[in-house]
Every structure is written in C-alpha cells, then in structure tokens.
C-alpha cells in the first residue's frame, strides 16, 4: 500500500461510490473533460460517461437545485463547487429547499455539496473563504470538514450514503500537501463524531480542517516547554460532537477553539458557547477562540499571513491561557 494524498482520497471515494451505487452521479462545472479545477474528478468522465459526470453552465443555484430534484427521485447527486466561495450563489437552494425539506414534507434530500475551502494559498477574497458559519444555523443540514486523507475518504463515503443534505468542505491547502496510507476496502468515518488527534493533559485545542495540522505542530513545539496539548479534530461541524468536546474540556480545564473563519458568527463561537454553558465548573480559565479577524480574506502573502491563525499565534495563545 502506498500513501495517498488528501485529494486522491476524495477522488477514490467518488469513484468507489459511483461503482458501488449507480444512483450516485456528479454535477458541476468543468468536471468532465477537464477533470475539475483541482482535478478531483479526473478520469471519471471516461469511466462513467456524461450522464453520470454532468457538466453544467455557470449556474451554482441550478446545479444544487437539479441535484435536489434528482435526489427526490432517489438519486444520490454530488455537486462540486469549483471553489466553495461560490456556494453562496446557491444559498437559497441549500438553506431553503434542501435543508428543511424532510422536516416540511417528510421527503429526504440525500445530496452532497462539496468543494475546496480555506486559505493560505493566496487565492484572494473569493477563492479562500470558510463559509461554514453561514450554514451552521440551517436546521436539516450536515457539515463535514476533514483534516486527513483517511477522513476525507471515509467521511465523503459516509456523506454520499447519508440521507440528508451534507456540505463537504475540503481544505484546498491540504489537497496535495498531506498523504497517508488509507484503510483497506470499503470504510466510512461516521458523521457527527470528533476524534482525539493527540492525547494531552494541560489544554485542549479544538479544531478542524487545515488548522488541525497547525495545532499538532504547536503541540510538538510546546512539548519542550512541558505543556501537554490535547488536540480534538471535530471532523463534523454540524451536528457537533458535543460529548467529545465536553469530555476533552473536562479533562484539561483549559480550551482554545481554533478555526480559520472570521471570528464573528463562526462555528468556533458555537463550540465556545456550548463549553461555557455546559462545562463552566470545570474551567480554569476563559474559553478562547483563535480565529481570523473580521475582515475579508486578504490576498498578498504578508496580509494573508497576518490574517490566518498559525503555529506562532497558537503557541502564544496557549502560553497566555496556561498562565491564567
């Protein structure tokens, strides 16, 4: 077995689910001949033909709408947003059509909307966003954001098989930067369950996506100082694994929620609120959020570096909270 990139893991999940289940099809822009802007769908047109790798006009709302319609007839469409920033163009279809449909009239909408999210690749304002906060409060949606290749494959497989609309936020910074050996055969990583990525005693960092790797690197650096970080990878942002969040906080009594979103209205804010509400007696210090400032994602490298959380900023925050 050889190591597989995060991007290849996503491609494998798509390919294997399409082979396993003829109801699964892909719909989006430039997926077919071109293989997708990041080549996630390379080779799938040749394998499955144009009826199952459906290229569309530049119409994000219609892409999602058509996926919803197809899912009502029992299909399992997977929509690709070329960049996840463009998901806002399909906001109404996702939030008002797909999300409440089962609640309204009992009809499931098993669609996946996936695409590259996140910054640190100098993509500028409209190719770097983390829009999860916009969707966090839409009842009926599930939101997934894998941080490792194995999770990317297992969670996407689970998302495609899930009967609900799932937003699948891939981190484009990770696409070709991380690789690992994947479990053999067919496997799912369950939606709704976080994972302790590193056991520790002193302070919990709760995070997801590319920020997981920032947290793990910071943990290595802080080890030398005798600070033992616990790192919790949320993996699913909606519904949150509240049990795992509270268990970690009760163990360490200090917590930083680390995410790549603008601070206000972030998923990190919801995590912090739940900790404050349910784990207050266990806390030895304030619940900290380390997020991006409330600005658009800036373009130029020094600006983006100033904007994004990184290892140095996290280490400083850990030291501050440790001495509280």
């Amino acid at each position: 077995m050889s190591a597989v990139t995060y991007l290849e893991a996503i491609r494998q999940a798509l390919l294997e689910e399409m082979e396993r289940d003829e109801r699964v099809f892909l719909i989006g822009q430039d997926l077919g001949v071109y293989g997708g802007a990041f080549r996630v769908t390379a080779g799938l047109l040749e394998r499955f033909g144009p009826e199952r790798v459906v290229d569309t006009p530049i119409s994000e709302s219609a892409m999602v709408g058509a996926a919803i319609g197809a899912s009502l007839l029992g299909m399992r469409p997977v929509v690709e947003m070329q960049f996840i920033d463009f998901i806002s163009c399909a906001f109404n279809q996702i939030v008002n059509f797909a999300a409440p449909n089962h609640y309204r009239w009992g009809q499931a909408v098993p669609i996946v909307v996936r695409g590259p999210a996140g910054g640190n690749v100098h993509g500028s304002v409209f190719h770097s966003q983390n829009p999860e906060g916009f969707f966090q409060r839409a009842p009926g949606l599930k939101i997934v954001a894998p941080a490792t290749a194995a999770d990317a494959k297992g969670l996407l497989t689970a998302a495609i098989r899930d009967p609900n609309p799932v937003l699948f936020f891939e981190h484009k910074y990770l696409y070709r930067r991380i690789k690992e050996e994947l479990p053999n055969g067919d496997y799912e990583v369950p939606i709704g369950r976080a994972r302790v990525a590193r056991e520790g005693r002193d302070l919990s960092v709760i995070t997801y996506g590319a920020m997981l790797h920032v947290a793990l690197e910071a943990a290595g650096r802080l080890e030398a100082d005798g600070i033992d970080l616990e790192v919790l990878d949320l993996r699913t942002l909606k519904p949150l694994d509240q049990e795992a969040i509270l268990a970690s906080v009760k163990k360490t009594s200090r917590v930083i929620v680390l995410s790549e979103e603008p601070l206000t209205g972030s998923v990190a804010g919801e995590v912090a609120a739940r900790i404050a509400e349910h784990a207050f007696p266990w806390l030895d210090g304030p619940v900290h959020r380390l997020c991006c400032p409330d600005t658009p994602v800036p373009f130029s490298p020094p600006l983006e570096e100033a904007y994004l959380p990184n290892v140095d900023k996290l280490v400083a925050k850990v030291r501050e909270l440790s001495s509280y």
Partner: protein
Amino acid sequence: MAKVSRNWGPLHPAPPPPDEERLAKTELGREAQLELYRFMKLNRMAEDRLGNLYRQGKVVGGLYSSRGQEATSVGSAYALEPQDFVGPLIRNLGSMLVRGVQPSEVMMQYMARGGGPTGGKDANTHFGDVSRGLIAPISMLGALIPVMAGVALAARMQGRNAVALTYIGDGGTSTGDFHEGMNLAAVLNVPLVLIVENNGWAYSTPTSRQMRIKDIAVRAAGYGIPAEIVDGNDVLAVHGATKRAVERARGGAGPTLIEAKTFRMKGHAEHDDAGYVPREQIEEWKKKDPIDRFERHLLGEGHGLATREELEAITSALDSMLNEEVDRALASPLPPPERAFLGVYAESPVSPAASGRGGRVAV
C-alpha cells in the same frame, strides 16, 4: 444626468375582445371534457370553501386563490401521464387535484391541523408526495424550476419515460433561478415543461413593470427552446399546448415554455383587496371566466357534449363531497407541540415522515 425613459407602456395588454367564445380544437372526448369541467369546478368550489373557513377565522395565516386561473392548472396537469411529475405553485390547486390530492388535505394544511400532509409543520399547498408525482415548492419563486429540471434529469437517468412539469408566474420570471433553471434544462435537454402563468400582476406589480417585453414566451428563444402562447382561460387550448410539449419532452426533444395568458381575479392573498387593479380590467376578464366559457362550450348547440342537468349534477355531487371534506378537515386536531422537534433529519431515505403519517419516498 441622463434622461430615464419612463415609457413602460400600458399596465397590461388589453385582453382580446370577448368574441373568443369558441374554444380551441381538441382531441378530447366527452368524458374527458366533463372530467376537466369537474376538476375546474372542484378547484373553484374548494377555494370558495376555504374562503368561508378563512372568514370564520379557521385558516391560520394567508389564503391564496387561483380564481380565474383554473383552466391553466387543470388543463396542463390533465395532459400528464401517471408516471409524470408536477411541481405546483401556490395558485395551482387545480393541478394538485388532478394529481389526486384530496381537498381535505389542503384544508387541513390551511388550518394548520395535525392530520394534514405536513402534520402542521408547513402551510397551505406546500406539500409534496413523490408517489403521486407531486413535488412541493418553496416560497422563493423560481427555485422550483432547477429542482424540476433535476427531477426531469433523474427521470431520464432512471428510464422512467416521465416528464416534469412546473409553473411560474409573470413576476417569477424575473428571478435568477428562472434563468438558471431554464438554461440548464435546455443545455441538458431534459424533459421539462414550464407553464408561465401570465396573470397580469405579481402582488401589486403589473407585468409591464416586471419586464419590457409583451410576451414572456419570447424568453424561450434565449434558451433555444420552443414556446407557445395560449389563452390561459381556455382549458382546451392549455391542454392541447401542454400535450404537445409533453410529447416533445417524452420523445427526447427537451424543454418547452408555454405562456398562458390569464388573469388573477382576486388579490395576491385573501387580505389583499387588489385596489391597485383597474376596475375595468377586472370587468373585461370576468367575461372571459374560464369556467363560464367552458360551460358555454359544453352546452353549445350542436356539440351535444352535456346538458345543463348533467353539469348541475356534477356541481351538486362536488358540493356533497366538499361538505364531507370540510368536516373531515375540521375533525383533525391541531398537532401536538412536541412534533415541533421531530423530523429535522432523515434517519434513512425511507424513514417515515416525522408527522407520523408515514414517509413516501421514491423507489
């Protein structure tokens, strides 16, 4: 500052003079025509009953009428086969009745009763049932068009030999989803039929302030698809045009846009007295009432399609049926409060609806 043209033309194109007594030629026989008549009457009489319930304070929220537009809903939905799918909007009760929806289902929805198809979770005609080929709309106009394009796409993928039909109003054609949906449907060449009900008014906005074109049908050229303009108050014309479009779609020739010119005879909803609609416009269109016209056609000398007694018998049977439907709806209790928390997520694609009425899911 540049001079802005305010030349928006007349508020609404004047209706053709009421010499249009003759309805379109049809292949439909006597029985089918009487069935059309029955559905149109049922549409209007059910809405009259809903109006009574509204005035009795039993309807929760708004009540939306399709008075004057019955021919468009009924004539179009009647052109479908059992395996086809229809996505009705708020003024398409007639289409739903043709698909087998019971008036009591809609009454319970309007009265927020627990026994309605959504169990009190959603209102009015906002419910679907895939097993009856019925897809529920959302209030955001235009959104249903790409969804129905997806229904048509899936129907083709699954080899169902089915067509998807949906509706939009004149105002709804101003949305982005109208454009995205029609363009996608055209590019993918899916079996979709769109009925544009040009009823003159989008709430208080006349069509002339919604667009600069006179015929919405011309928009079809922008998508490279065929269009037809029909008299929306002639049920036979609507049926014929829809039938042609449905056959084209089923044969693999892709989408069609049909513009049905009709008129909204009431306000946007029951609370709206439509004081902004010129009186004479209403009077003009009253003469074109689709049910009266169809009645005159059925009774017309030489046709021998129906006698006045036969039509009265249909009406009186509907009246008794509606008595029972109203009683059934009124007998349904309000939903239990704890239902508010159920059914946000589907447990599996075939899970029962949280309303407790059993889920209906496609194969």
